[in-house]
């Protein structure tokens, strides 16, 4: 019995990812793809070509295609501009990497500036007064207090 439970648990673990992946959702895909005529996402467009693309997505889902296969098929027809977000590979990766690089550069500049300002504000070590000046200050203080 225990062995059977172990087998069932292993099977569930192996099959888990397949279950959780499931078939692609048409509504999600329509929000991630752009109508090439009106240049809004498909879910926002009623243009004839957008309607045709929505039909294509449903056909491909019914045929068992994955989300990536459907996107690849549409890119093969309409080019990479059909993707609402750039790919995370090749030239499209630049669109993701550049803002992060700019953020890192900005943080580095701020760090350098903060360090520079904090250095400027560090009080300089006390330098001893000129003995003559110190004597005169003491005399003046004594006269003032007296």
């Amino acid at each position, binding site marked *: 019995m225990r062995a059977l439970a172990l087998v069932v648990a292993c099977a569930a673990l192996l099959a888990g990812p397949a279950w959780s992946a499931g078939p692609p959702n048409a509504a999600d895909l329509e929000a991630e793809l752009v109508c*090439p*005529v009106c240049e809004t996402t498909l879910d926002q467009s009623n243009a004839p*070509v957008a309607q*045709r693309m929505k039909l294509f997505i449903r056909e491909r889902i019914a045929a068992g295609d994955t989300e990536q296969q459907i996107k690849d098929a549409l890119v093969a027809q309409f080019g990479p501009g059909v993707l609402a977000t750039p790919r995370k590979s090749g030239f499209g990766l630049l669109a993701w990497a550049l803002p992060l690089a700019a953020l890192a550069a900005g943080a580095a500049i701020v760090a350098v500036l903060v360090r520079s300002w904090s250095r400027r504000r560090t009080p300089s070590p006390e330098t001893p007064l000129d003995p003559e000046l110190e004597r005169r200050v003491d005399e003046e203080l004594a006269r003032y207090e007296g």
Partner: protein
Amino acid sequence: MSRRARLVAQGVAIGLVTLLFVLLVWALATDEGGDLAGAAARGERPDAPDFTLERLDEPGELSLSSLRGKAVVVNVWASWCGPCKEEAPFLEQVWRENRPRGLVVVGLDAKDFRRDARSFMRRYELTFPVVYDGPGDTLSGWGVTGFPETFVLDRQGRVIESFAGAVNSEEDRARLRAAVDSALGL
């Protein structure tokens, strides 16, 4: 910040601004967007932008420049475009009538599925060459803003007439025939 560091920072900032300016100038200089229709209407005969695109009627590619020496009608269409369906038979007729005299009609199918475009070609029995531009990258160079649009080019590859929208009315059809005759040098 030390004087040296400040100078470096200033140099980097000036360099970045210069780079952005150069990019702007380059973008403006290489912008192929044009008002071919407006220029043709003013009688300026602007050069048609060249393209090399995949063919849908047979394997391989077709370059517009390879047709130099012939009069050309470029018809921009898509299978999902209603008015394109109405004018397709007329364009096929113009092609059949004028092909022996040196006219080539080129269909430019854009923003469309290849399969749908081929289905359209079979349905309307189109026999003229059709090229495919799925992303529609060539359209801005021609100043195309809608579907369909048609351009008549003379034997030197210059635009002498254009039509925004379907060539359906008798007046437009007569104008297209006259432009074709003119392009052929008749």
